[in-house]
């Protein structure tokens, strides 16, 4: 491992109450990759909602995702959305229950370059399912901010979100 290839915490947020969204702003451009580690619940609601991210304030249909999932039985569903307005960070979107939290690790690769579209890799895990997802943001701008929110309802109190920087060297 290169000496610089380690987790450096950039910012962390722990929710004291149910919250519609959180932001990470002024993300340093000094790392190679970003890793977002999330432990979260949704406040109420039912299955079918997702943790979502919009970057750099872009609300246009400039995102896409491809996923494969498991709910523990049957043929694993796989699919893609080619034109959406957000990153999808748990394709099955089941809100964790009051006694457990979804464990989500998402890596944004080469986020600070200004020549390529940006991709992310997500592994989301809850009592309802396993998701592996790749997202694409069709924009060459460096990622400097993120807005996190649920596709419905709020992020629940007790949820934690930490953004780490990884340097290649």
């Amino acid at each position, binding site marked *: 491992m290169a000496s*610089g290839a*380690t*987790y*450096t*915490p*950039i910012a*962390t947020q722990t929710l004291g109450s149910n919250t519609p969204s959180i932001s990470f702003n002024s993300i*340093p451009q*000094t790392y190679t990759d970003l890793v977002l*580690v*999330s*432990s979260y619940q949704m406040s109420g609601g039912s299955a079918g909602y997702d943790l979502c991210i919009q970057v750099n304030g872009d609300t246009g249909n400039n995102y896409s995702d491809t996923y*494969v*999932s*498991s*709910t*523990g*039985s*049957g*043929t*694993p569903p*796989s699919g893609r959305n080619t034109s959406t307005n957000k990153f999808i960070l748990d394709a099955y979107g089941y809100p*964790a229950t009051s*006694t*457990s*939290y*979804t*464990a*989500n*690790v998402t890596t944004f690769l080469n986020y600070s370059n200004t020549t390529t579209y940006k991709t992310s890799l997500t*592994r*989301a*895990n*809850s*009592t*309802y*399912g*396993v998701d*592996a997802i790749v997202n694409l943001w069709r924009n060459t701008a460096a990622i400097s901010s993120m807005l996190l929110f649920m596709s419905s309802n709020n992020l629940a109190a*007790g949820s*934690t979100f*930490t953004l*780490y920087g990884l340097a290649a060297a």
Partner: protein
Amino acid sequence: MANPTLVQLATTTVGSGGVSSVTFSSIPQTYTDLKLVVSGKTDYTGAAYDLGYVGFNGVTTNLSFIRLQGSGSAASSTSGTGGIFFRANASGTGSTNTFGNAEIYIPNYTGSTNKSASVDSVEENNGTEAYTGLFAGLWSSTAAITSLTAYPNNGNWAQYSTFYLYGIKNS
């Protein structure tokens, strides 16, 4: 700029003769997340592939998982209890020098909520058979994780298996 906070807490390399389990005890409570990285092989000779699983604080109760698995030709979903599982190699025909690899990430291991885990794992049998196993793991306990034990699903952990435990701080 904050300091890097991925810290290696402990390592184990299995010696000659193998071991029935690998335990990391007295885990410091000063980190936010834990990451266990395994290069694992069991001495089970009935197949070339196997599984390992993790338990916490000396127990393997109240543990459950959901698995998404790919074999190169088909994908499948299963669920179960008794541990947080991951793919490993075994010692059957065709497994010479092959070890499975797994990364188990556990956020908020000192918290007072149930503990969720994210597992990415893979094993390959010298080009003739391979599995990718993605697991969602849950320990339904509000206790902080103070020890972690990795068990082979069959037999013992074989010589040269390695287990690295890391702590990650969020500040």
